[in-house]
Structure formats: C-alpha cells, structure tokens
C-alpha cells in the first residue's frame, strides 16, 4: 500500500520531527509514502479570509496532483487535513461551488473528480494497520510513561469517518498499546489557539495555560500530539506561559509518531527526538533507557 503523502509546510520547517518520525514509522510498517510532486501550501484557515474561492482551489491543486498519481492522500497535519477535506466536501456537496472550482482549475489545465480519499496518518495507523499489528511491532514498551493525548480540534471536526468530534479515542488506544499509561484529558479536542498566538497572544496564552494546566494536574509527564500547530503552541510558548502566569510547567510535547517510533525501537535520530524544544531526553532515559 502506498499513499500520496502531503507533508504540508510545517512538516518541512517547524515540525520537521513530525515529518521524520512519520516517514520512519511508515517505512517500518511497510507502508509507502510518495510525496505529492510539487505540492503547494493548503492555505490553512488563513486563506478563506482573503479569498473564499481561492481557499477552495489552492488545496484542490494538491488533490488533483494526488489524483494524477492515482493514490489516496495521507496527511499528518490536522490543519492541512481539514483544509483538504473542506475543499473536497464543497466540491462533492455543492454544485454551484463545484462549477466555480472546476472553472478556476481549468486555467491550469487540471481537473479534480473527487475519486481519492484524504486520510489522517493517525487513522491509517490505528484503523488500517490496526492495533494488533502495531502491538506486534513494539520492541521497547513505554513502561507506564504517563501521557495525555491531545488531539486538537481539526483532526476530529467538523466530521470525518474515523474520529468522534469531541471525544476521539484513537490516540488513547494507540498509546495504550505502546505501553504508556494514558491519562484522562478533558481538553483533548480543545483548540490550541492556532495563529492567534501571533496576533492575539493574550487570549492564546490563556488557552495554553488551561491545556498545560490540566495535563500537569493529571500528573502527565508528556503530552502526545498529532498536529504541528498544537505542538508548536504548547512547546515553544511554554516558557511564556510560565512567565505570564507564574507557573512552572516543563512538559515535553511529543508527536504520536515519535512515541510510536521509540516503542518500535527506531533510532532516535530518525525520529528527530532532539528537535522538541522542551527536552525529552530525561523521559527517554527513564522509560526506555535510550540516550538521545
């Protein structure tokens, strides 16, 4: 099985470790990822503001390229995931806007017929590969590492075939199979603030405090994530939260693919374990005896 892989901009920059660990884990599972040739930015949630129609055709170009490759799309970033799916669902459900999308795509000589599926890599790992198969690949169990699963908002909403919109369980079950102690986390699908961290930091920092606060209260030693925006906001701004609210959080924020890779015994270098800003060195030594 090979997917058309859409890394998106973050995975080539601020979330490089998500890209590295995704590729390593998929290689280990024997699933092919063929990067979509000459993909462009999906436009995320920013583009509909400046141009509504543009925000539908920009992701559609990527989908048309994947369709030319003849493969379903695998996406790691929650925001890319929802953006690509939004374009496809407008195309499928709304004839007026489908006609507009088609007309615009005509100028670059590309057509999209909505024949392919768009899947999140968490869905592929948990549902397509399956947890039994994953369990058989675990070589270094996580030995009770206390972790909260933080899904963020756009992996589950507005709707898709795999995750419950408010209380998904996919990452919980995966981490459990890896040997972690998965703690309850009521904020699991709350928003991380996204780009508001740049434009309205007062409001976004409060959100971050709530997210980190619940994790700390539950005794989490790590927060597992599936989205580069969630990871960045919680990881890169943790010291700002501490400064503003006189807290003392020091909780590593780790991609689920990194934890999966560690459990599978993939070398730390291939998983980008040194790139997380809040260091995960101590945790790795404590639980898997791994020196990174």
């Amino acid at each position, binding site marked *: 099985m090979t997917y058309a892989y859409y890394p998106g901009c973050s995975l080539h920059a601020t979330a490089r470790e998500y890209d590295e660990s995704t590729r390593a884990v998929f290689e280990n599972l024997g699933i092919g990822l063929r990067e979509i040739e000459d993909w462009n930015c999906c436009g995320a949630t*920013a583009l509909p503001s400046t141009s509504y129609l543009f925000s539908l055709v920009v992701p559609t170009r990527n989908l048309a390229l994947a369709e030319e490759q003849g493969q379903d799309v695998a996406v790691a970033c929650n925001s890319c995931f929802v953006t690509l799916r939004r374009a496809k669902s407008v195309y499928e459900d709304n004839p007026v806007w489908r006609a507009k999308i088609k007309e*615009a795509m005509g*100028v670059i000589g590309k057509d999209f017929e909505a024949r392919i599926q768009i899947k999140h890599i968490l869905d592929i790992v948990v549902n397509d590969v399956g947890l039994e198969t994953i369990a058989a690949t675990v070589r270094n169990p996580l030995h009770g590492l206390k972790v909260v699963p933080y899904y963020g908002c756009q992996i589950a909403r507005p709707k898709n075939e795999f995750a419950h919109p408010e209380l998904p369980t996919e990452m919980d079950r995966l981490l459990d199979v890896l040997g972690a102690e998965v703690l309850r986390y009521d904020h699991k699908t709350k928003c991380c603030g996204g*780009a508001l961290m740049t434009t309205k930091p007062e409001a976004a920092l409060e959100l971050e405090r709530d997210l980190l606060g619940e994790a700390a209260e539950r005794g989490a030693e790590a927060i597992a994530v599936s989205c580069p925006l969630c990871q960045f906001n919680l990881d890169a701004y943790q010291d700002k939260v501490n400064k503003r609210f006189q807290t003392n959080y020091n909780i590593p924020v780790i991609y689920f693919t990194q934890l999966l890779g560690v459990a599978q015994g993939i070398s730390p270098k291939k998983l980008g374990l040194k790139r997380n800003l809040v260091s995960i060195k101590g945790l790795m030594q404590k639980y898997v005896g791994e020196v990174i």
Partner: protein
Amino acid sequence: MTGELPVIQEASLDPDFKRLVESFSGAQNINACIQCGTCSGSCSFSESMKHTPRRLLEMVRAGMREEVLNSDTYWYCTSCYYCTVRCPRGINLTEVMYALKHVAIAVNKDKNAVFYDCFNSVLQSYGRLYENGLLLKLALKTDPLMLVAYGPLGVKMFLKGKLNILPSRVRALSDIRQLYDKVGEMEEKI
C-alpha cells in the same frame, strides 16, 4: 462581552447583507438560528470578543452591516468547529465566520486581518508558507518590535533545525498565480 444593547435605526440596516453572507458555500441556513447560545458557550474566545457568535449571527440577520464589519468576532475564530458540531440547528458557523472574514477584510484592520493578508501574499510569492517572510511582513505592517520579541525563539528554532532561512518554492509557481488571477476575475461577479 457586556454592555447595553445599541439603539439601531431602521434606516441604517442593510437588508441585502444577510443574502450576501448566505451566498457563500456552507453559510446558507442562518435563518434557522434559534439564538440558543450553544455556539457562544462552546467558543474558547467568547470572553475576548466584542460580540459573541450568537449575537453576531443575529446582527447579520438584522442587516447591521457596519457593526458586523467592524466587529472582531470572526478574527478570533480559529476554525475549531466546536460551534459547528454542536449547533442544534445545523448551522455551519465556521463557514459563516469565513464568509464574514472575506467580506470584512478590505475594511477591517484587525491585526488578524493583516496577518491573513500577509499569509496570502507569502503564498502567492512562493506557493508555500515561509515563516520568516510572513513574520517580517506582519511586523513591518503592525509592530516592528515583534521581530525583537521573536528573536530568541527564532534562534532556538534555528539551532534545532526547525527554521528555513530561505523559502521553499513551488516549481510551477505560475499555477498559483494563474489561479489567483482567475479567482480574482470570478469573485468580482459574486
């Protein structure tokens, strides 16, 4: 959000405003709103907004064009879709907010509007996001001191190999430009 309800003169209302918003995909059934407030109760940012989502929706229906275009509700919207999945009337509030952002961006100078404008221009230049370019543009248009504030984080990111000094570009950049021009022509007709 507190305060007295404003007195609205009927002559200042724009009955076509609601129709304009409804012309966007996904924003059609705002008449179904029963003003229950589930959206406002679900939103992470209701407390920071001038108008809660429930109130803003009623303002759109009433045709309070000026007030809506000068609000900041939609600039707080991060598209988390909580309101959308919880609305008992099936209104896609997130798409309504997108439509309002699109209509308001030309006149509303909220920092988030400027951010999105910069994002769009970076996308047109490279076809991909370029964080340094985006931050630089935003700082120059809003607050140059932002660059100083971001300095230490930028250094950390660079040392972790998470910051691209130069932008990554789409090879077929002409695709993006052609699409943008074409969409520009088509949107004049909306």
